[in-house]
């Protein structure tokens, strides 16, 4: 069911269109583009025993699908709850569409939260759960009915309107929880790892559904997850968090192609980790020379650890076993341990001379001759594609 303009006009929403505003948003003609902008300023949360969120700054544009991504304990859920109003910041500000809502009670904030455990009211039907917030606003019954039906349609739960949560499966409950938030037409919808309790297939389906709902409604979505694949699939932009701080903010492509910190490089996407012994420098470039067995150039500034070793991160698809290494490439000799054919690419698992085992993804039309198991190969990659693993002098 799409909210095309024809349908909206037939529901009497024509005049809104004449006002020249976007109307493909749950039939709400008053949502202005750009609404739902969230700014976090120096937001900090201190608990009795730890610093959960350390002075983060963030800007979420209106209508974005924005994810907070990070491992457990990185502060993403705490940040989300502060935006929702369930945690009071120790310092900093939260601005919603320019208004300072830092100390505004969640009852009055124009954001709605989809809880990880769904939190549906067990004694109410799906319909009543969704209608609850509208009843509080004392909207006329006809309007409530229409909006609830719309919301349930968007999440495809119309036939289950009269069921109680106990009669619904996890995925169905999740949808009702989303509808309950959607129907309020908030400036932003916050989702706290909503798909965590679902099985894989259902999760994939729901990811597609949520993306569709986001497109159809145009609301700002702030999504918390620890699953980087999920974040990459669904988001316009992602903030990678670690230990209460934001490591990097950017589109999925930015994060993947240009990780700003070793943590991001290691957390987002697959990465190989090499342990090197730098033997010298060539200008500003660190060099690890293995003689006939290889030369590794470290293009980015890096400082070896106390024992003289240096970690290096390289993505599997940046490496190759078929190309001849050039001047600007690093290369290492190795033995192929395993070959996995995966349709559009072949994955080689190679034991290289440094003692590490790396994964190399090679497009099948990139090699004239595919090496086999046990074969001796040269693994090469452009020096600029690698990122040092140790905390270096990077910004």
């Amino acid at each position, binding site marked *: 069911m799409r909210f095309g303009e024809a349908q909206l006009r037939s529901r009497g929403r024509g005049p809104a269109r004449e006002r020249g505003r976007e109307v493909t948003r749950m039939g709400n003609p008053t949502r202005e583009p750009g609404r739902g902008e969230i700014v976090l300023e*120096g937001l900090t949360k201190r608990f009795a025993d730890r610093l959960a969120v350390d*002075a983060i700054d963030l*800007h979420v544009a209106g209508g974005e699908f924005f994810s907070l991504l990070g491992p457990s304990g990185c502060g993403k859920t705490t940040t989300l709850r502060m935006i929702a109003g369930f945690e*009071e910041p120790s310092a900093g500000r939260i*601005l919603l569409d320019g208004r300072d809502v*830092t*100390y505004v009670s969640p009852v009055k904030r124009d954001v709605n939260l989809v809880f990880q455990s769904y939190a549906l009211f067990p004694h109410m039907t799906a319909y009543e759960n969704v209608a609850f917030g509208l009843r509080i606003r004392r909207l006329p019954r006809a309007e409530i009915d229409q909006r609830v039906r719309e919301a349930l349609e968007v999440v495809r739960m119309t036939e289950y309107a009269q069921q109680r949560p106990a009669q619904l499966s996890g995925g169905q409950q999740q949808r009702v929880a989303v509808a309950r938030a959607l129907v309020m037409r908030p400036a932003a919808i916050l989702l706290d790892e909503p798909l965590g309790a679902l099985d894989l297939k259902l999760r994939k389906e729901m990811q597609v559904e949520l993306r569709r709902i986001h497109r159809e409604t145009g609301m700002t979505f702030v999504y918390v997850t620890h699953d980087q694949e999920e974040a990459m699939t669904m988001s316009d932009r992602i903030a990678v968090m670690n230990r209460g701080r934001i*490591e990097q903010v950017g589109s999925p492509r930015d994060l993947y192609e240009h990780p*700003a910190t070793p943590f991001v490089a290691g957390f987002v996407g697959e990465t190989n980790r090499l342990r090197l012994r730098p033997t010298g420098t060539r200008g500003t470039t660190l060099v690890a020379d293995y003689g006939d067995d290889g030369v590794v150039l470290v293009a980015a500034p890096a400082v070896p650890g106390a024992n003289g070793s240096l970690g290096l991160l390289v993505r599997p698809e940046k490496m190759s076993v078929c190309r001849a290494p050039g001047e600007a490439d690093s290369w290492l000799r190795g033995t192929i341990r395993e070959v996995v054919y995966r349709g559009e690419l072949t994955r080689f698992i190679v034991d290289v001379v440094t003692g590490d085992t790396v994964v190399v993804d090679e497009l099948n039309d990139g090699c004239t001759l595919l090496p086999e198991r046990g074969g001796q190969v040269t693994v090469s990659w452009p020096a600029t594609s690698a990122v040092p693993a140790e905390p270096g002098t990077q910004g």
Partner: protein
Amino acid sequence: MRPPLEDLPGVAALPRERTRRPLPGRLSRAVTRHGGVVFAFVFVALLYVPLLVLALFSFNDSIVCSFPWRGFTLKWYAEALGDENVVTAIRNSLVVAAVVAPLSVVLGTLAAYPVTRFDFRFRGLASGLIAAPIAVPWEITGVAALIYFVRILHWTPSWGTVILAQTVVTVPLVMLIMAAALARFRKELEEAARDLGASRLQVFRHVILPQVAPSLVASGLLAFSWSFNNFEISFFNGGFDLLMPVWAYSTLRHAVNLPIVNAVGTLVSAAEVLLIACAYVIATSRSGARTAKEKMEVFMGEVG
């Protein structure tokens, strides 16, 4: 090091100040957050105030149990312990409780075991009958027992009849507690023992009993303190044998306040507090901190 805030129009212009919640909001938030606990604390404290006042006046050197304070004295305690009626009453109550407790634990457990372990035709009826006294007000149970003892059995009411009448009420309490304990008990242990050749009695003695011992002790203590404290049944069935609550009631019917009753009351309450405290400490130290919740469940089993 943090990545820089994305350069978007308007953001750079915002002042980076540390804000605090405005004062009226802070006050109302404090009230919302803590108001409930304060109320709860005050109420529970108020529940204890009468008893504390009682204890206070038991040390007051004044025949009138009220202010002003006329000096600290222990003479009321001396008088209480020297009063033959008091000593007899307390002793009788202790003896009665000491008989009622084990008697009801035995009977209650004997009732709980088959109800939780077997499915026999009259199970519902039997357990219903044994649990029935809970639904009958104690006064009425006492009255019925009195009529029965005197008219039918031609017994004189004495501590013996009190024991019997009180046990009628404590057995269902014990049965409920023990039924819950036995139901929680893991059947596999029992079956394993039987598989190894133990008779049912041996299984009971060596496998079940040690496991449900805490509940046994708890229900025993419950029966003991209930019996000692009981008024309604003792009132009707005690006859000329004094029991502590009956003594207190009769004495107080004829006088406004008597410090000797304060003294006795304080002594008895202090002893009971100590008893419950010991029971709690024993129960929680045995099985770790979690048992605090379990003990609460046992107590609450008594209520509901």
